[in-house]
């Protein structure tokens, strides 16, 4: 039987100013009918380049050195553009990472699918309309007719990704490439999308190339997996064999980096006694009443970001805060750092804090924050030296000591070489940037460090290293952490207690020991835990 998609000996270069850069080297893989093949790799490994090569939509500076791409025997590289345009969407389709950018914001959701149906299947407008509605219903969308009249911004992320999937399946293609289709979605929504993928895949028997950085997701859906590293496929074979008994060091490293809740990374205990921070009925409202609507006596529409949150953190404690996006976890971080105004009572180290203007020098020094995206949290126009020396100048004893030595010591504390001080942020990798941001937060010797999704924009292996770094810094400095994340497996490794937030409210606070011993008390926590994909090596799907 000839495979549906066959890539053999494919080598791709990108022409850059520094010369040709190898993106893919001698890549060979095949996807049969009804089969799901996972491609696992970190960012920059070439997995997305592979997807675009198959779709024949490479950037202008791409140079194809060797190899063949075949779709059911058709040589894709030899096809003229006109033929390719007919092929795309009909025989091969693609589902992208972010549904909010892969749908056209100026067309209704219905039009985006009927266009495909009319163009590739030659249906009339009326037939396409009916077919689209049944497709929408098939992918589990409520009120298909109503949704078809809506625009992308009027639908949720999960609904949009369902629409994208419906479009991909619309012409019953031979092969669909899924490029991280759940990465931009919430844990809960991601789980539903994965379920949908499984159902549709089994039903249509489409050959699927599933690209992801998440070993746990791939282990749950792919029969065969290819591990890609720096443009080369280092290992490929049945999922059970590759992930269960990896032959290559790189695969083993990747597997080790996946967070396992059983493995504790912190061994410190929080101090007993008076809490470092305690919040009572902390409420954050967004939306400012404008002067004009105030004059008209109109009430502004307020959005409650966090409602009546009551929690306490002991000195030296790591409190994990988990929840979906929009659950209010980042709002809490913004309130505690004075970036959002709040109502309610906040006590820090025995002193009452009423609002952002009340946060004095001591509070600002003692409470530090590390943001999610190091790209955004480090000023692109400042060198690492300036970024790190600023908090030292504000709070440290830099006057007495040599500032240069202090910056070097900070860099060393986060395992970066001292000569990084002269670099700009764009000259560093994502993990290195986040280390600089962490060093900046620890510079004034804070008592509380708020980590707002610090690892979610990083690769798995880098994420593991950053988590270990944070655990070490916690041990060395004794600072308390507020560790905000959507990954409940990760937080179980590092936190002493876990607070679960849902729609702005704190639904449960539970110690990790109790969670291990008795499981979650609240229903929502249980659902959240069930939604996180886990590495399932024992019961991988069978090879079709």
């Amino acid at each position, binding site marked *: 039987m000839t495979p549906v998609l066959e890539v053999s000996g494919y080598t791709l270069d990108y022409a850059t100013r520094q010369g040709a850069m190898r993106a893919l080297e001698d890549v060979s893989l095949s996807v049969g009918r009804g089969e799901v093949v996972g491609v696992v790799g970190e960012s920059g490994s070439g997995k997305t380049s592979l997807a675009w090569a198959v779709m024949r939509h490479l950037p202008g500076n791409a140079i194809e050195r060797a190899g063949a791409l075949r779709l059911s025997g058709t040589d894709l590289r030899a096809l003229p553009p006109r033929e390719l345009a007919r092929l795309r969407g009909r025989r091969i389709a693609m589902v992208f990472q972010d549904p909010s950018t892969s749908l056209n914001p100026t067309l209704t959701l219905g039009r985006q699918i009927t266009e495909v149906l009319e163009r590739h299947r030659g249906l009339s407008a009326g037939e396409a309309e009916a077919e689209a509605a049944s497709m929408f219903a098939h992918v589990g969308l409520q009120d298909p007719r109503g949704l078809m009249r809506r625009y992308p911004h009027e639908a949720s992320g999960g609904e949009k990704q369902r629409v994208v999937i419906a479009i991909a399946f619309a012409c019953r293609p031979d092969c669909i490439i899924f490029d991280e289709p759940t990465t931009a979605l919430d844990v809960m929504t991601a789980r539903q999308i994965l379920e949908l993928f499984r159902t549709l895949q089994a039903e249509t028997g489409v050959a699927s190339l599933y690209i992801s950085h998440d070993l746990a997701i791939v282990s749950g859906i792919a029969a065969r997996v290819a591990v890609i590293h720096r443009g080369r496929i280092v290992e490929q074979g049945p999922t059970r064999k590759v992930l269960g008994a990896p032959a290559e060091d790189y695969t083993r490293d990747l597997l080790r980096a996946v967070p396992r809740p059983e493995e504790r990374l912190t061994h410190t205990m929080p101090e007993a006694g008076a809490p470092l921070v305690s919040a009572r009925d902390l409420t954050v409202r967004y939306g400012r009443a404008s002067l004009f609507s105030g004059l008209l006596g109109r009430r502004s529409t307020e959005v409650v970001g966090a409602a009546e949150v009551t929690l306490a953190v002991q000195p030296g404690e790591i409190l994990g805060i988990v929840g979906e996006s929009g659950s209010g976890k980042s709002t809490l971080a913004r309130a505690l750092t004075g970036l959002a105004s709040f109502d309610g009572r906040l006590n820090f180290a025995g002193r009452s804090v009423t609002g952002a203007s009340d946060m004095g020098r001591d509070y600002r020094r003692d*409470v530090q924050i590390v943001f999610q995206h190091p790209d955004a949290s480090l000023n692109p126009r400042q060198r690492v030296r300036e970024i790190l020396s600023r908090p030292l100048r504000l709070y440290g004893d830099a006057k007495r000591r040599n500032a240069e030595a202090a910056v070097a010591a900070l860099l060393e504390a986060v395992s970066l070489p001292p000569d990084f001080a002269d670099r700009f942020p764009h000259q560093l990798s994502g993990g290195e940037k986040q280390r600089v941001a962490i060093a900046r937060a620890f510079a004034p010797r804070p008592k509380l460090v708020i980590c707002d999704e610090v690892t979610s924009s990083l690769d798995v292996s880098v994420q593991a290293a950053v988590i270990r770094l944070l655990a070490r810094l916690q041990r060395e400095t004794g600072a308390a952490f507020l560790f905000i994340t959507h990954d409940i497996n990760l937080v179980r490794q590092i936190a002493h207690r876990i607070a679960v937030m849902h729609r702005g409210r704190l639904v449960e606070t539970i110690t990790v020991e109790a969670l291990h011993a008795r499981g979650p008390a609240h229903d929502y926590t249980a659902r959240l835990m069930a939604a996180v994909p886990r590495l399932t090596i024992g019961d991988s799907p069978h090879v079709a």
Partner: protein
Amino acid sequence: MPDIVRRLLRTPQGVIGLALVLLVLTLAILGPLAAPHDPDALSPLRRYRPPGGDFLFGTDQLGRDILSRLLVGARATVLLALLATFLGTMAGAVIGTASAFLGGRVDEAVMRTVDALMAMPSLLLALLIVSVLGRGSENAVLAIAIAFTPGMARITRSVALAVRRQDYVNAAIARGEGSFYIVTREMLPNVVAPIVVEMSIRVAFAIMLFATLSFLGLGAQPPASEWGLMVSEARRFMHLSPWMIVWPAAAIAFVAIGFNLLGDGLRDALNPRT
């Protein structure tokens, strides 16, 4: 920086603009040394000379060499226009960034004031300021700078609003930095690209505005060889010697075109997406 120059040289308007501006700046700096005659030397016997011979561009109504006057006047015209643009741009950039950073009522108040000022044409505003401050080159520079400030403030604010949402600004606030540090060190360096582009285009406006003020008798005063003033004086003798008005007018156009092209080129060079 060298990267930007390389990108600038990739577009025709960038190459031509840069060449013209460099030429003008060289003349403005070295002009007085290159002048063949004393720009203020009167020679009643050689008035209204057409171009040619000893006087390459001819002479004016008092027999002064027009080429020498242009070369010496370049410094007054171009450098003062640059100074005026720079002052106006900087003031506008700081006001716009601060307004975006502070937000709320302050932002509202600043931007409505800017709207009010922008409702007046900049020439009218400059005229108003000069007539209040009194005539003279320094006051004309100040007037142009003030006339440019509202527009620059509005442009800078729109860019700064995007920068304001970046986490490095939040990080600075959370760290307890003062507003002055955040505006000048965290935000301003990140809004500089559009400002530079706008500035290079506005230099051309400033030269024309400056020449206009001098032409109206409110900027440079005789016997200065400012280009606008030269045009103004030559107007009366147009029927006797049209060359007297052609040369300074051409010089103004030349510089304006140069800076405009440079601005267009910079806009493309500083935008990585083009």
